[in-house]
């Protein structure tokens, strides 16, 4: 079986190289049949990669320990779900997943657009094939999942805290996002290579970008929720380089999704869009370099390997390629129109873009700072949470405000008076909310928290005003959303970001935390909740001794809560945090069993207001993204008309 997998990958590499070389030749010399042949090679490349993927998945499901990869990443007692998730648990499997998704996405994108965008697709094929060649080469020559060894009785196991459904879904979601960004990049490069730099490539790839962006967003939230409920430190995001590696391309893609609207409507920001799509793609590759090379110090210690250097080489190569293309096509990319007023929707989108890119680059700076200081000062220095938190507030709060202004401000130009008139309700509600929070002390002493809540009220009101106006005009909310899914899906996503902002502000600025050693019968009061330590329960499971402390909660909330620690027989420990959720307040009472001393226990008690809005935001985000993604017959008609116009 391993031979079949190896052979399939060699075939994939051959097909990718053929699609790259033949596709480039065909595109340069306008050889239509050869271009079709290159396109078919790309489709076949997906087929052969799928064969390799089936071989690996089958070996994982059968616990075939003659595969080195299977023996190193699974064990016989591992449930099938987790054994299969080992596909993306190790480096070699992750690379195979990357190639599978890339060729699958590529085949689909090329097949769907082959008639409408023939001249563009002729160049898109070799670009996707070029990326596929890189991954297929790594799988064949550097890091193969099909190495074999003498069969062993049992393989290595899975770290207990990773035996969690979140960890089954979180990595592939991120891969779907990372790899998905290759498609708009390939179309952008194809547009520049073919000289077709009108908005057709943007229209054709809008859904691809949106899907990749959605997967990246959902993947990150799944990872955050796993960290929150499983790792037991009370947080959900640590600004760790590996976490930031997923956030940065998401921010660049967010900027791109907004700026393409300006190009579609006004024909502006063409160069900027090319830069953004290249940036998002490069950051997705750079993230893999950070993760795999070990050049940055992360709490996620993936196995260090030599493929880091290959990824760095690929980042440099593709960056040079992108820069050269943009410089070459500058005359074609220059806008025919210019910004008419700083008070217009296109200007607001530009401000939004600058803030998103600034946030993205400041995070990148924080990630590479230790590398740069080591290189130039001879001493590595790391940047801590205050740096990232500062810039999140500095750029994030104005972004929140723009989210409310952008959808309501007019294209081309408007006056301050007209803008204030349009926004009178949101401004009124936001001011009232801000004053109310100050008067009742709801915002405590946190100024950023107060600003975040006020801006959130502003944005939510703009969304409500828009929905009310639209529903009045159409007579039905569903009819309204159905008529322009992209717009109203976007509003739902905006609402999810507001919920996220409220959740982050509430759970960080207004959280309470107390450490205390308690003996049975003793109590501790945190933020109006009294926790009384009742008793200790000790039991034995199949693979661990499980200790649980039972606490009664009274005061603002009533109930009981169990928190404890599992001491696995292999020496691992895992804290099982106790979480009591107050759904009305979206608040969590979060208790960590820190250390046992006889019957006494050191507890860490956290009260995290509004934290559940973060997870609820994830659901709204997913729903809004799906609404915006959903096929729309009206939009399709507009697209075909637009393409016909552009072609003419």
């Amino acid at each position: 079986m391993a031979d079949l997998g190896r052979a399939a990958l060699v075939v994939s590499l051959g097909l990718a190289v053929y699609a790259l070389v033949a596709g480039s030749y065909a595109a340069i010399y306008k050889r239509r049949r050869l271009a079709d042949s290159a396109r078919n090679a790309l489709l076949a490349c997906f087929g052969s990669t799928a064969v390799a993927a089936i071989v690996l998945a089958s070996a994982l499901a059968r616990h075939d320990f003659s595969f080195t990869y299977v023996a190193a990443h699974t064990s016989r007692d591992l449930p099938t779900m987790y054994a299969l998730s080992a596909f993306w648990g190790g480096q070699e499997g992750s690379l195979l997943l990357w190639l599978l998704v890339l060729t699958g996405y590529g085949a689909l994108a090329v097949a769907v657009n082959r008639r409408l965008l023939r001249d563009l697709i002729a160049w898109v094929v070799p670009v996707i094939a070029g990326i596929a060649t890189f991954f297929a080469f790594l799988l064949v020559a550097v890091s193969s999942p099909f190495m074999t060894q003498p069969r062993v009785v049992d393989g290595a196991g899975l770290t207990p805290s990773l035996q969690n459904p979140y960890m089954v879904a979180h990595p592939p979601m991120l891969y779907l996002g990372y790899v998905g960004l290759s498609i708009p990049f390939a179309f952008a490069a194809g547009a520049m290579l073919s000289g077709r730099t009108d908005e057709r490539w943007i229209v054709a790839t809008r859904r691809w970008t949106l899907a990749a962006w959605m997967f990246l967003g959902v993947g990150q939230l799944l990872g955050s929720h796993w960290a929150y409920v499983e790792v037991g430190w009370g947080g959900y995001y640590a600004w760790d380089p590996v976490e930031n590696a997923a956030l940065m391309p998401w921010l660049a893609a967010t900027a791109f999704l907004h700026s393409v609207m300006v190009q579609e409507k006004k024909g502006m920001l063409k160069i900027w869009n090319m830069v953004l799509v290249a940036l998002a793609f490069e950051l997705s590759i750079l993230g893999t370099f950070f993760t795999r090379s070990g050049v940055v110090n992360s709490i996620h210690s993936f196995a260090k390997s030599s493929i880091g250097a290959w990824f760095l080489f690929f980042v440099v190569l593709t960056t040079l390629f992108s820069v050269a293309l943009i410089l070459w096509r500058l005359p074609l990319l220059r806008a025919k129109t210019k910004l008419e007023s700083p008070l217009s929707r296109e200007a607001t989108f530009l401000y939004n873009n600058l803030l998103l890119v600034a946030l993205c680059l400041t995070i990148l700076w924080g990630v590479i700072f230790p590398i740069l200081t080591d290189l130039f000062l001879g001493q590595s220095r790391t940047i801590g949470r205050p740096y990232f938190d500062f810039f999140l507030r500095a750029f994030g709060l104005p972004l929140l405000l723009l989210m409310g202004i952008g959808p309501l401000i007019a294209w081309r130009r408007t006056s301050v008076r007209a803008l204030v008139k349009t926004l009178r309700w949101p401004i009124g509600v936001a001011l009232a909310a801000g004053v109310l929070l100050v008067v009742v002390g709801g915002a405590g002493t946190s100024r950023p928290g107060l600003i975040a809540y006020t801006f959130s009220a502003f944005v939510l009101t703009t969304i409500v005003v828009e929905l009310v106006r639209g529903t009045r005009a159409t007579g039905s909310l569903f009819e309204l959303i159905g008529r322009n899914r992209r717009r109203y899906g976007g509003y739902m996503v905006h609402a999810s970001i507001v919920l996220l902002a409220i959740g982050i502000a509430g759970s960080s600025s207004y959280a309470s935390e107390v450490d205390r050693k308690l003996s049975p019968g003793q109590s501790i009061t945190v933020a109006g909740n009294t926790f009384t330590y009742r008793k200790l329960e000790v039991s034995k499971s199949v693979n661990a001794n499980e200790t649980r402390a039972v606490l009664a909660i009274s005061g603002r909330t009533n109930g009981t809560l169990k928190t404890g620690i599992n001491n696995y027989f292999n020496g691992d420990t895992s804290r099982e945090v106790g979480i009591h959720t107050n759904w009305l307040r979206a608040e969590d009472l979060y208790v960590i069993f820190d250390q046992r001393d006889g019957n006494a226990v050191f507890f860490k008690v956290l009260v995290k207001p509004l934290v559940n809005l973060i997870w609820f935001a994830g659901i709204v985000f997913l729903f809004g993204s799906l609404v915006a993604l959903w096929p729309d017959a009206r939009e399709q008609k507009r697209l075909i008309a637009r393409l016909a116009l552009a072609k003419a």
Partner: protein
Amino acid sequence: MARSTRSPARLVVALAVAALLAVFLLYTAVAGSSTPSFQPSELAGQTGTMSLTGKVLGPISGDAHAAGGLRFTLRDINPKAGTKPATVPIVYHGSVPDMFKAGRDINATGKLENGAFVANAMTTKCPSKYTDKKA
């Protein structure tokens, strides 16, 4: 539609904003909240708060919540070629993170005091996704 005119002023303003941001970032990072990072072999003569990364060696003794603290030894993860990996005794006060045990890689923040590294914050690195049961 208005025709575009190429204005060098726009480029100058954009570059000025970018330069200001870069200087501000540099200042914030260097003078603000950055912490030097070391491994045990690089600790000699260092003062002030620093970050230390290494592999935990047993025996692990003491109590992280008691005055004496939790005590163990930290060793270089990647010793320089041809040299013996350096070690340093650690005294830790605070919450002991999940997955902390001998053999794991950790990151601790603290100060060097009388030859021992006294730490008040510690994170255990997540082991590579799938690890050997015997590790």
